[in-house]
């Protein structure tokens, strides 16, 4: 339960940053927090109390002692996707800063929002 609550809290903080903050870097941090929160949510869905990582080894050969492996695979995928997206967003911020000389979103308005 604590996992779900903290995951939702992190997502909430991210959405807050995305909506309220006017600095481009803080917006990206907000996006990152949302993705982290979701990853925590995915892992906690597959978690079963008192079981080990889903890796067959000498000590653990019985699949019923392990947590669900699928959410962990999903998390890995979403971490990779999230990293590449944030890198792209950061690249856009660099370009924006070069063109406009500011990170304040209120001053970057050549297009109608």
């Amino acid at each position, binding site marked *: 339960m604590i996992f779900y609550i903290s995951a939702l809290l992190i997502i909430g903080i991210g959405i807050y940053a*995305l909506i309220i903050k006017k600095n481009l870097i803080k917006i990206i941090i907000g*996006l990152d927090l*949302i993705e982290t929160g979701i990853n925590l949510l*995915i892992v906690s869905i597959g978690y079963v109390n008192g079981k080990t990582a889903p890796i067959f080894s000498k000590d653990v050969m019985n699949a019923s002692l392990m947590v669900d492996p699928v959410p962990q695979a*999903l998390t890995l995928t979403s971490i990779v996707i999230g990293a590449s*997206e944030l890198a792209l*967003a950061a690249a856009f911020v660099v*370009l*924006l800063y070069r063109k*406009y000389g500011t990170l304040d979103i209120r001053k970057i308005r050549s297009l109608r929002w």
Partner: protein
Amino acid sequence: MVNLANPTLLVVIPLFFAFLSIIISPFLKKLIKFVPLIVSALNLVVIYFIGVKVLYGSIVLGTTAGLNPPYVIILAVDKLNFIIVLMVNVLGFLISFYNIFYMKEEPTDKFHILFTLLIMASSWISITGDLFNVFVAFEVLSLSSFGLVGYMRSKDSIEAGFKYVVQGILAGSLLLIGVVLIYAQTGTLNMAHIATKLDYVGSLEKLVPYVLIFFGLAVEGALFPLNSWLPDAHPAAPSGISAMLSGIVTTTAIYAIIRVTVTVFNYSAFIPYLFIIALLTLFFGEIAAFFQKDLKRMLAYSTIGQTGLFVLAFSVGTQASISASVAQMVNHSFSKAVLFLVAGIMIEAQGSRNIDDLKGFGRVNILTSILFVFAALSLIGVPPFFGFFTKLAILQTLLDFPGFLGYLSFALVLFAAIIEGVYFYRVFKILFEKSDKNFQAENPWLVISPFILVLILVILSSRPMSVLNFTNDIANQLIQRTIYLTSVLGGLK
């Protein structure tokens, strides 16, 4: 002999070429521009072999890792998937031909690699049978289109790109939460397997993930409250990309919504809301298009309106309405692609996107302007063109929607068609007005792709009934979802 009727090839071929071209691009920079062309041509060959089977009513499966569904990721092609993936690759082929001549500033290798990935991701979304795959393909699609929108690195395109990135990431997150909540309840990610298990899930537990997935896809599909990125991103992108975004990306997103709504959730409770959202999208898109002075921005708003139109038709929920919706999707994809490609030629000739600066263009470049007029007339739905038959089919089904909303939407669709007519007529008038301005003559290579697309539209117009019969088959197969479920799961309960 390799079995060519394997949907997996549609994803593997573009990915292979995309990675290969990253490796060889330092040595053979000039050749990279042919990669998307080769890729979509190879994909079309595969689609032909798949199509032969699909048209006889079977569902072609592509499994991975040698296991049976639902334990592996599968790709499934039924008639609906077939027509979408066919559209993706036909447009991909013609637009990449256009891009070869449109993108002049070398080096263009990165542009063409991203375009290959865009073709791959759109094909992937339109054939996958796995919900998590929809998310992954959706992200690949978004990533490559982010890069392409910001490719020109002008002030406009960077800012539009950043807006698109933020909204795209948020959309992906919503989609992912939805998919994961589904997994938490059913323990599977295979669409057909989920569909069989969701019958035992309560309606609220179904509603929350459905809404999340819907809004996640609706950002890319440009439905009403979530489409503020589109009127900036489409004009800022190079014209070939605008055509691809309008013709393909929104269409595949709407396809994904249709697939999730009908096959996975079998959900009718949400349909009235979908109807209202689509109505608002149609209305605001067309009204906003009416007030634009920028040619590409006008076309972008018109895309929003058209998207509203075919989602509206779909959300009536009968077989006839789904059929009309798919037909309109085909019409919109081809004609809007022509409009954007031609707009690219016009903008290149005059150096600005303002409609008023086009005065007299039609008197110099007659062929280009006539292609624009043909495509616009088909989009509006003027009688001899294909668009007329699809709009007629949509209007016929709208009256099936119960109550006052049905009549209201009927009136609004007619009203929207009139507005569309007015703002396109304004462009025609300016195009053929007398003026002493000198324009560059059209580049004949650039005109080939829109010309072929218009030719396709003309062929469709000459046999509208056989097209509508085919879309009717599609809708029939979509509604009889048990066939899809059993053939994907191989009789597994």
